[in-house]
Structures are given as structure tokens and as C-alpha cells.
């Protein structure tokens, strides 16, 4: 009986050690938002920087809230997200070294073509939100602590409204899924322009409000602090951050468009 158990114990150990893949020389783990991946930008840009820097990047696309948490726990080497205040807090608390702004676009409000709340053409997001709340037309919120959700909360605060009631639906899903739900419900929602352009063709909704001063959506990249987590691949992460400041990177970001519309605007140093 004893020998039998010894044999049995060996099996998993052997199998697991066979599973441990040989470590690749320069692996960078990047947590990023669903909007950068859903928009299709990474499909274009990732092969370019992997080849230019001779690194392998594992992209983990999650909401901004979770991306920051992965960084705070030292589970990734670099984060690329869009929630400026949360990012600055991340750096201030010593989890990241510095925030480098790499690109921006803006948020827009989309809704049913009939626009029952009557916000079409408004430029002030807070005013548009207040109008929607007053009409009690359905508004779909990400509700997931993502960058877009944080922006939405800021706008509600500015409008001095605490959104609640049957018209306010928090879905707790990624941007693409949220747009689909809003489409099915003929509802209003806040969306980053990148995702909106990528999804526009399949959505029954229309862009109704854009261009307000507080609708800027800026993307920052932060290397996770090697002082706090000695294990992180800081050298390669920093090379990646430096690469995003090169003319080559700017050209790719500026050149990425959907249906002839540019999705992101690179930030020159």
C-alpha cells in the first residue's frame, strides 16, 4: 500500500514540473483597460513594440480598477490605464514610479436616435446628465470602478445628482458589453470615443453629446515600483515606457483609425 501511494504522489509532481515552461528572457506583464484592447489598438501596436524592443508582452485586459489592483499587488510589471486621479494616487502611495501620459481622446454620451430625454447637441456633460436624470430615461452605468465609471461619477457629482432609481442601471461589465446592453435597452450611456468608434457599426445608438471641457480621457502608463516589488521586470517595463515616447509610437497611435476617424491622439513630451 505504501509503495502504491508513493507512486501516486510522484505523478502530479512530475507532471507539474513538466508544465513549468522555460522562462522567456524579457517578459513584460502589462495590465491595461478593456478600452485599449477592445478598440483594436493593441492588435496593431503590440507586434511593433515587441519586435522593436525584443521583448514579449503579456497583455491582461481588465477594468482600470482591477488593473491598478494588479499593480498594487505586484502581479504585473506595468499598467496602462485611464483614470488620472487614481493613477496619481497609485504613484503617490509608492506602488508606481511615475505617470507618463501617452495619449488621449475623449468621452462621449450616446443614446437612442429618438433622444427622448432631449440632450442632442449639448456640450456640457453635467447638464446632459441632469437632463437625462430628470427625464428618468434609462441610463446604463459601467458600475465596475473602471476609468469610465470613475469619470461618470465625477460628472454626476458635478451635476449634484446622486443617481438612483429604476432608470439608473449599473451592469458591472466591460465597455463593449455595456454598449450592447444600452443598445438593447435603447438607453443612454457614457463611453470612450475609441470603443464607440470600434462598436458604432453594430450599435443602434447614436453619438449625442461630445466636446465638453471635462470629457477628456487621458491614458497614462506607469512602471510598478521595483523598490516595493523587487521581482518586477522594471528594466524592460521602462524601455516600453520610453518607446511610447518615440516618433514611431506616435505615428502608429495617430495613424490608427476606424472608418477614417482617428481614435487616439499621442502626447508629445
Amino acid at each position, binding site marked *: *500500500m505504501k*509503495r*502504491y*501511494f508513493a*507512486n*501516486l504522489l510522484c*505523478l*502530479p509532481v512530475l*507532471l*507539474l514540473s513538466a*508544465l*513549468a*515552461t522555460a522562462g522567456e528572457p524579457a517578459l513584460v*506583464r502589462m495590465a491595461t483597460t*478593456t478600452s485599449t484592447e*477592445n478598440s483594436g489598438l493593441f492588435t496593431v501596436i503590440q507586434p511593433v513594440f515587441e519586435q522593436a524592443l525584443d521583448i514579449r508582452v*503579456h*497583455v*491582461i*485586459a481588465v477594468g482600470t480598477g482591477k488593473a491598478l489592483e494588479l499593480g498594487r*499587488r*505586484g*502581479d504585473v510589471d506595468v499598467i496602462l490605464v485611464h483614470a488620472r486621479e487614481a493613477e496619481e494616487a497609485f504613484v503617490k502611495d509608492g506602488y508606481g514610479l511615475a505617470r507618463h501620459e501617452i495619449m488621449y481622446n475623449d468621452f462621449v454620451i450616446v443614446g437612442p436616435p429618438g433622444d427622448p430625454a432631449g440632450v442632442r447637441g449639448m456640450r456640457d456633460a453635467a447638464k446632459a446628465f441632469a437632463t437625462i436624470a430628470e427625464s428618468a430615461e434609462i441610463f446604463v452605468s459601467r458600475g465596475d470602478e473602471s476609468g469610465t465609471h470613475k469619470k461618470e461619477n465625477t460628472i454626476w457629482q458635478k451635476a449634484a445628482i446622486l443617481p438612483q432609481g429604476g432608470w439608473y442601471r449599473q451592469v458591472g*461589465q*466591460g465597455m*463593449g*458589453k455595456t454598449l*450592447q446592453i444600452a443598445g438593447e435597452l435603447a438607453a443612454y450611456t457614457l463611453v470612450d470615443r475609441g470603443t464607440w468608434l470600434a*462598436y458604432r457599426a*453594430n450599435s443602434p445608438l447614436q453619438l449625442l453629446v461630445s466636446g465638453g471641457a471635462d470629457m477628456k480621457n487621458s491614458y497614462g502608463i506607469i512602471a510598478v515600483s521595483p523598490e516595493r*516589488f523587487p*521581482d518586477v521586470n522594471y528594466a524592460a517595463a521602462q524601455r516600453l515606457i520610453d518607446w511610447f515616447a518615440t516618433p514611431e509610437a506616435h505615428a502608429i497611435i495617430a495613424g490608427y483609425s476606424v472608418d477614417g476617424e482617428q481614435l487616439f491622439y499621442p502626447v508629445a513630451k
Partner: protein
Amino acid sequence: MDSLSAATAESFRLLFSGDVALWVIIFTSFSVSLKAILVAAPFAFVVAFLMAHLRYPGRRAMIAGFSALQSIPAVVVGLTVYLVFSRSGPLGDLKLLFTHTSMVIGQILLSFPLLVALSHAAFQAADRRVWETSVTLGATPSRAFMTLVHEVRFGLTTALIAGFGRIIAEVGCSMMVGGNILGYTRNIPTAIALETTKGEFAQAIALGMVLLTLALILNGMLAFFQGRGVMKS
């Protein structure tokens, strides 16, 4: 309805166009889940056998415990494995998070209770005299165990099929500990989840059909070992 049929047609085209990325995803799914079941099953069978064979205090509580654990949500297992292997967690130094190995470990934990509960039911139904006769005839305990395993092989195959079905289709744990990394830890269920959020329904349906087809082939092979599938006469 129109979009459903269009998506299905498109999914057939994708499957037979030899898309490499698609096949990497399929390979990841099956290699992870097959490894998990191969590691988990021998342990589970031994535990189940001991529960059916020995009499000790707390045995029935243990049986009930394994049965209850079958209902554990995959995300809860995923979260637990994540917290253990996170670099801030107790086993963070192993650097296993977001790798195939952590996905395998998650799926082992997921399938184990199911394997134990179902194979225990098989052993429980076995005739104790099979064991006693083997031992009387001079078989070593491991030899007698193998005889018993052969005797209840249909029940154990059912356990294997159910366990494999549970993990090949689960999305919560793989998403959490694998990270859905393209070309590495993206498997069929996490890819379906992603493609659905992106509105790429054709791709999602194609992947769903691959999963079903390959599971059918695998089960067909196992059915071969099930014999004729009729009652003993």
C-alpha cells in the same frame, strides 16, 4: 434570428480557414484541462476508495463535504488561487500567476470534489468481496485496488467525463488566474467571453462549436471503454 444564422455561417468559415490564433486557443484549452484531470483523477480515485472502504469517524461528514464542494463557483476557486499565487500572496515567489500551471492548479481544485463524489458512488456500489477475494488470493493492496478499479471502471469513466466537462467549459477561474493573455493563457471559454463583449458573435459561436465538437470526440473515445452500455445479463 437573422444575426444568429449569419453568425453560425461565419463561424463555419472561421473554423475551416486554418486560423492559427484560433487553434492556439483550442490547444490551450485542451492541454490545460487534460493535464488537470490527469493529475486530479488518481488522487480522487484513491480518496474515494478509502472513503468507501474504511470505517472511521467523520467519514460521512467527509462524503457530504465533497458533495457540497461540487457546487463551489469557479470564480471563488479562481479568486482563492489568485490570492495564493499573487506576488503579494503566500506562494507569490513561485511566479505562477498568469501561467498555464496556475490554470491547471485551479482546474484541479475545481474538478477534485466532483471526481471524488462520483467515483465514491461507484466504489460504494462495488461488491466488497472483490477486494476480499483478491487479497485472499494473495494480491498486494495496490493490485487488489486495480482489480476493484477495473470492476467499477464504468462509474469511474463517468466521473472522468463529468470532471472534464466541468473544467473544459469553466470561464471564471481561467479568467482570474490565467488573465486571458492572447497566444498564451487565452482558452476557449475566456475567448468566448471576450469575443462576446466585443460583439464578435461569429467568433464566439465558432469557438463554442469547436468546444462541443472536440468534447464529443473525446466522449466518443471514452464511450468505447464504456462497453455496450447495457445492463449485465
